[in-house]
């Protein structure tokens, strides 16, 4: 079974923010909630500037999942880390734990009132019925169920952002690296999919069944 992953190719990313607005558009995510964002390292510094688009990486041993006090995360067969907004209590712990700053909240958090957590779903919806209205309203579209890939990756202006089966995108990326002979870092993979320091994670977190 395909294991879904993201790669953002820093040699290609131009900080055009298409991935960000594609996501907003597809899922009608409200102002202030950014499932995806683009960061430019060393902005303006000749020879050192790189842009990278980041969203939830759907980690193998996901810290968000581990800290959630109500255990509302789950992992799909494709390795996509999703959560159930009906259960989420908006405590914010997932956002403290996530290395990438993926979890987002609709309100400001005074008195801990953040609203339900929202994050990148890899365009795979949520626990509601695939393609249902309820699913759309809570989690946005379910493109995977439609046989499509994440909107952000599909619309990326330079195809810097690759999203899909980890093996396939790694292949594509590797080909690029070979062609250009540089830029071989697969950003964030170590943190997201690499060796965990978590003793519990030796046996990879199993899907709930």
């Amino acid at each position, binding site marked *: 079974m395909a294991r879904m992953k993201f790669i953002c190719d820093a040699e290609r990313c131009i900080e055009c923010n*298409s991935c960000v*607005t594609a996501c907003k558009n597809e899922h009608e995510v409200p102002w202030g909630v950014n499932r995806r964002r683009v960061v430019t390292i060393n902005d303006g510094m000749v020879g050192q*500037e790189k842009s990278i688009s980041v969203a939830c990486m759907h980690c193998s041993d996901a810290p968000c999942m581990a800290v959630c006090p109500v255990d509302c995360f789950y992992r799909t067969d494709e390795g996509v880390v999703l959560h159930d907004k009906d259960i989420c209590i908006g405590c914010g712990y997932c956002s403290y734990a996530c290395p990438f700053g993926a979890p987002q909240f609709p309100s400001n958090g005074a008195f801990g009132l953040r609203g339900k957590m929202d994050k990148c779903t890899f365009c795979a919806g949520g626990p509601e019925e695939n393609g*249902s209205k309820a699913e759309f309203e809570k989690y946005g579209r379910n493109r995977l169920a439609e046989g499509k890939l994440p909107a952000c990756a599909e619309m*990326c202006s330079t195809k810097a952002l690759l999203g899909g089966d980890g093996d396939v995108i790694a292949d*594509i990326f590797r080909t690029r690296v070979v062609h250009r002979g540089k830029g071989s870092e697969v950003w964030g993979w170590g943190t997201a999919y690499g060796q965990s320091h978590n003793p519990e994670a030796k046996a990879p977190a199993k899907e709930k069944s």
Partner: protein
Amino acid sequence: MLLTRKSNAAGGSTSARVSSGLSSSLAGSLARALPTMDRRGFLKRSGIGIGAGIAAVQVGLIQKAKAADGKAAGADGRKVEVRRTVCTHCSVGCASDAIVENGVWVRQEPVFDSPINLGAHCAKGAALREHGHGEHRLKYPMKLVNGKYQRISWDEALNEISARMLSIKKASGPDSVFFVGSSKHNNEQSALLRKFVSFFGTNNTDHQARICHSTTVAGVANTWGYGAMTNSYNDMQNSKAALYIGSNAAEAHPVSMLHMLHAKENGTKMIVVDPRFTRTAAKADQYIRIRSGTDIPFLWGLLYHIFKNGWEDKKYINDRVYGMDKVREEVMTWTPEKVEEACGVPEAEMYKAAETMAKNRPSTLVWCMGQTQHSIGNAMVRASCIVQLALGNIGVSGGGANIFRGHDNVQGATDVGPNPDSLPGYYGLAAGSWKHWCAVWGVDYEWVKKQYVSQEMMEKSGTTVSRWVDAVLEKSEHIDQDNTVKAMVFWGHAPNSQTRGLDMKKAFDKLDLLVVIDPYPSATAAMAAMKVDGQELNPNRAVYLLPAATQFETSGSVTASNRSLQWREKVIEPLFESRTDHMIMYQLAQKLGFGKELVAKIKLVPGKGGMMEPEPESMLEEINRGSWTIGYTGQSPLRLKAHMRNMQMFDVKTLRCKSGKDAETGYDLSGDYFGLPWPCYGTPELKHPGSPNLYDTSKSMMDGGGNFRANFGVEKDGVNLLAEDGSCSKGSEITTGYPEFDHILLKKLGWWDDLTEAEKKAAEGKNWKTDLSGGIQRVCMQVHGVHPWGNAKARAVVWNFPDGVPLHREPIYGTRPDLVAKYPTHDDKKAFWRMPTLYKSLQQKNVEEKLYEKFPIILTSGRLVEYEGGGEETRSNPWLAELQQENFVEINPKAASARGIRNNDYVVVSTPTGARLKVRALVTQRVGEDTAFIPFHFSGWWQGKDMIDSYPEGAHPIVRGEAVNTATTYGYDSVTMMQETKTTICNIEKWA
């Protein structure tokens, strides 16, 4: 259990199907993530994938499987359609599929098949669907009453506006009304507007191209033929080196980078020359910082090394270039020291760039606003052309002058739209051109002439959008027309894109009539309504706002930067009370008394509310019938639509269709280039495939080949201007230079009888541009393989311009008096596009007043990827607005710390006009110490104050900010009246 439902849904018997479909579609779709893979297989595979995947889903969302057939009724009777449209935000021309459910634009899907964008978009394109909501748009006609906008009906609006226009025409003449058209109009609307303005009786009309690429258009056309991008974004994949000078493609043409970055992976070397280290520069192999306004010293510095090392293409220059020796004389005076003094680039860097361009041929050169928006823009762009000519890169795949155009249809509007100095197709304003178009339009030439004040005014270029302010404010006796301008019609153009905002506000207050026809007229509206203390307001002024429909609410063709035409389907019906621009033109024309003439040869169809409007297809056919000069004749609606339906048949690198037939019409696409990039000569039936790369002699004429144009005579001062022996397009019967074709030359050559009898009748007394049958073009190309416009040399020296050989001249406002002394600007001009225009007197005054001490920082301006143009549309789109919430000035850390400014502080940017802008400081090394940059997309603040109260209710954009053009200064190109927006001066202090 709840948490397992997902896996269950995908589990069981369907799971195998889903997953196999899914993973194969993944593989396929990802294959296209890299253009080096076959994009086609994906469609098939994804088709399977989608079919299988969807089988498990029956809910009311739009499914591509159904949608793919074009129309489908959902199980519950919902109507779901896919409409193919093209992004309206820049000239790349990215296609996008709109999914419309019961008339509502519910989703947006990438068009992987598009050879131009392969599904990719930038932020603006990925946020297109917001146009389907348009919550911040003007919803109904409005009129300014006692400082507030009030709703009125369309009838009232059209009646009052037309009455006012007629009375102004009567009292002060038609030239007192200025029509600012739009590069956002499609080709049909653009052409119709030029006709509309002509029938009103004036040439006072213009559009964005003036302040965008006018210098390019004039400079390049005068060099070799057409003022357009020679190659295409796709063709850049064939380049071995690329020099971007004055283009920030990563922000302004993001999807073009898809092709460039792919090329880079295959070894293309990329050089970026810009005063700022931009997102584009970040991708370059070599970045070179120059002082703003010094492109000529840089380019001559480059050529210096090319000549010195003998890297120029001598044969090419001999065969195809006129005047290179004169250029060489000038260039060789630009020693490395002089170059470094002027533009700041040391010799080693210059040498490296020259070597890269020379040793990696074909090499391409890209420019954009960094070169055009200067008082010497016309010379800068010609210098770029000359570099490419010296390297033999023009007319070569992988080479070319890749001039990235601006608005989605600025190319088309320039080609066939409202220009003050030409009729559609660059036909000048001479009587012959008028007669040509009158014949095409089906109106009487004499009748049109009567609309004008005189034949003289009919043939005199109008004034330009960059100078409308002066046309209003100047004394009548100073300008070259009877009266000043009293009425402005903004028909799809923002005000904050023109310089000298303080003066503009005065002009707004002096007008008798202001009409804004725009989906987002609010920037103009607010500027007109706002009160400025102590400023006189014309008590009789009337201001009207009319809600225009967007390009998603009509159909029509749009010309991308690479000259490809694409047909947009109508996505949704015009929202609110808005009407399409062509409907408004027609209705207003009726009120003004020339409704019938406007549509004499155009079919009318029912539009919004059952009201009649001209049919876009029919309007395009009219363009086809008349625009022989630039080959807008072959792109019939039928062909364009077939291209849009069958994008998958076109190759990404060559843009060519190897073979294939349109299933719907049976049209055979074989050999066509995508979008029939103009020139697509002859009638549609001739099936010219379009020209992917201009002046390409390696292809035959009927394959899209060409050569430089014979437009300037056959010799100059005894020197041959025609191409030398052996230089001609492939398969040409004439293998040397030759002049342009007319009935006489045809007869002389004995080719007259190749015409049919009907063609002969039409061609008698005509030339290749005016023969309405297309016979001359057909015979030239199809029978004899020659170019109807002749075969000449490109002109390195454009003797009819102020500086035949491009000369460096310092900007009017600068920080280097020492260099002004060496490279002063032009002399003042008296009647230039009807306006007196200052150069040297102002430059001298600035030096004398030591402005360089009070305003020690060079101020330049340009684009952010998220916003477009004046920005009112994009700042109204929440998905985009969120990404740039305040205007800012880029300032170097050293300059900032010298002024006690920290990142994100509010600062005041002041310029010699007296304007004070309140913006955030973005302290960054993107700019050098001597330079600052402000994006120009903001408006809605006026020197620190939010003008939200002046907006029509509910029609203000989400993000407002200080417009840089409130503070920009005087300065105009010496050929085209381009405003000098890329170089002025400022001071920056903390906002107190």
